[in-house]
């Protein structure tokens, strides 16, 4: 690709004797999943544009262990957590931002009692702060008038009570924001959480992501916005199942902002 992304690693910064202000925790999905990588890059474009002093761990990053914990494997989770905490503490990390609500929740809430205390933000919260402080200017014409509905990720919304940041960020687009019937605290899960992403669903009469996509379709959207790579996959699959992929796109809040 032609775009030149500036993505320093912590190791490089250390070699230059610099301490970046914030660590961007990319997460496994953001590192390897083709769809999620686009979100990662969109967020880096925002960070570059706003001249944020950040770095990533690169190959020193490992799975947070969140999904293992939710699957019931507390051993594996704590192994991962303690290894990551060792790395993070060695680099004296204070601030972390991530595009994955699961990593966000896990590092923010479950790492402290294992010795990892950081100021953790979800990227929608981070982008909101960049906009609020004037470091990031959002051009309004790209999505002007488009109908956008936001799907609340469980681990951002119910799990951590953050419903406003993504909505405030989206409101800067001058688009037509609509709410699904089930939104904020009553939002329906996309179906990926609790390790469901990595297994076939149990027998039932419908897939959860299809039901959630139906919620979204009721608002007649042009764009379904999400703030989670797993929600993104599930909703994208749901839109395909409903054969609406020609008229509806599923985009992360970071992509919407980066594209404007």
């Amino acid at each position, binding site marked *: 690709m032609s775009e030149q*992304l500036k*993505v320093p*690693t912590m190791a490089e910064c250390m070699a230059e004797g610099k301490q970046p202000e914030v660590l961007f925790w*990319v997460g*496994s999905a953001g*590192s*390897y*999943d083709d769809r999620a*990588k686009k979100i990662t*890059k969109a967020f880096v474009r925002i960070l570059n544009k706003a001249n944020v002093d950040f770095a990533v761990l*690169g*190959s020193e*990053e*490992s*799975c947070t*262990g969140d999904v*293992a*914990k*939710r*699957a*019931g*494997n*507390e*051993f*594996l989770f*704590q*192994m*991962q957590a*303690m*290894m990551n905490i060792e790395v993070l503490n060695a680099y004296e990390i204070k601030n972390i931002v991530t595009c994955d609500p699961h990593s966000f*929740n896990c590092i923010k*809430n*479950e790492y402290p009692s*294992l010795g990892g205390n950081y100021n953790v933000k979800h990227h929608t919260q981070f982008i909101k702060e960049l906009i609020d402080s004037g470091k990031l200017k959002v051009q309004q014409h790209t999505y002007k008038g488009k109908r956008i509905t936001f799907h609340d990720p*469980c681990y951002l919304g*119910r*799990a*951590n*009570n953050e419903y406003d940041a993504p909505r405030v960020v989206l409101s800067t687009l001058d688009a037509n924001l609509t709410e699904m019937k089930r939104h904020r605290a*009553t939002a*329906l*899960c996309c*179906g*990926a*959480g*609790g*390790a469901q*992403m*990595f*297994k*076939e*669903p*149990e*027998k*039932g*009469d*419908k*897939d*959860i992501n299809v*039901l959630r996509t139906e919620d979204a379709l009721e608002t007649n959207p042009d764009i379904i916005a999400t703030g989670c790579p797993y929600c993104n996959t599930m909703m994208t699959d749901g839109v395909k199942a409903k054969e609406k992929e020609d008229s509806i796109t599923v985009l992360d809040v970071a992509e919407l902002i980066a594209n404007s």
Partner: protein
Amino acid sequence: MDYLPNILFAIALVLGIGFFAKNVRKLIRNIKLGQDVDVSDNKSQRWKNMAMIALGQSKMVKRPIAGILHIVVYIGFVIINIEVLEIIIDGLFGTHRIGLSILPQSVYGFLIGSFEILAVGVLISVILFWIRRNVIKLKRFLSNEMTGWPKNDGNIILYFEVVLMCLFLVMNATDTSFQELNSGNVISQYIAPLFNGLSEGSLHLIERGAWWLHIVGILIFLNYLYYSKHLHILLAFPNTYYGSLKPKGEFNNLDAVTNEVKLMMDPNADPFAAPAEGAEEEVPAKFGASDVQDLNWVQLLNAYTCTECGRCTSSCPANLTGKKLSPRKIMMDTRDRLEEVGKNIDANNGTFVDDGKQLLGDYITNEELWACTTCNACVEECPVSINPLSIILDMRRYLVMEQSAAPTELNNMMTNIENNGAPWPYNQMDRLNWKDE
């Protein structure tokens, strides 16, 4: 002087309250079968939660129709019970409407008038509740777990309340001296004409009959609680007090695991070291929960508190898409098994004798547990701070860490994390490849 009624009343009261107290002791013993958990933190926030959620019904009104009807019944129940105080004093000392000789007539009239209005409010609400269950047949009252006793239990409670409210109003309507005061009989004055033409003696008989049935009915209802989902009227208070104060996304870190992992990662640890002299014999920890005794006591309190309203199940994504998981059933199963364990202990002189059964498998199946997305919708919905998700997670922990019984795909995912630090089989050295793609 005829003290027979006073004596009979005292006996009824002692029997009713005594039997209830006996069951409450059993209830507390059963809850204490759970593992210890520290909930002594942040008392002020806990009191606040109890005041808001239980006393203030803040979460009930998230569903306005049921919420407002419930508030009418709740306020009616609490306030009309002031009247029970008078009944008890009258019954024990053979007085009649002792309140009248203590309070000014206008105050007494105001109180009884309020009770009568509330009684009608309760009657209407309870009838609407019955219609929602039995005529409109709301979906959340018809799930698989809501057949048999749970269904009957729901209706019996409503019948009880109808009868108690009717008795209260009839008691007032047939009390000729009370009607003659013409103060506070705001509703009963319209019921009184139904009894026109009856002799003074028959009216008195009906009034006494209603009075006795009312108080005996209340004592029976009190004792019904232990066997019913209706326990929530008492347990909602401690349950909201002990409810989690953490962000819903935060799942507890198991200390037993932390110790082992630290030992594993400590390069100086000697795996073959003999335990220090005098160190307590380590009890091999069981990871996760396969039976009620493995859960903590707050989770067991949760189970007794559940009134089976089904808001959790009606918002559960797995249940909404036809999977077997129902958070309400998780709570009902936990209580049923806990009751079974309690009866086992009663039958065996205070010790539990293995009955070859457990919560996992005999009540809750693996299929239900693996259908959960951990989305917290059930936790969010519960009007009395019950957490079905914590039980699901503890049972998953047992399946994975004690039985290695995770679905194959999840085992593959976990092997990937162990081998290359990601749930997919990609090389950790490739983590930053996206930068140049």
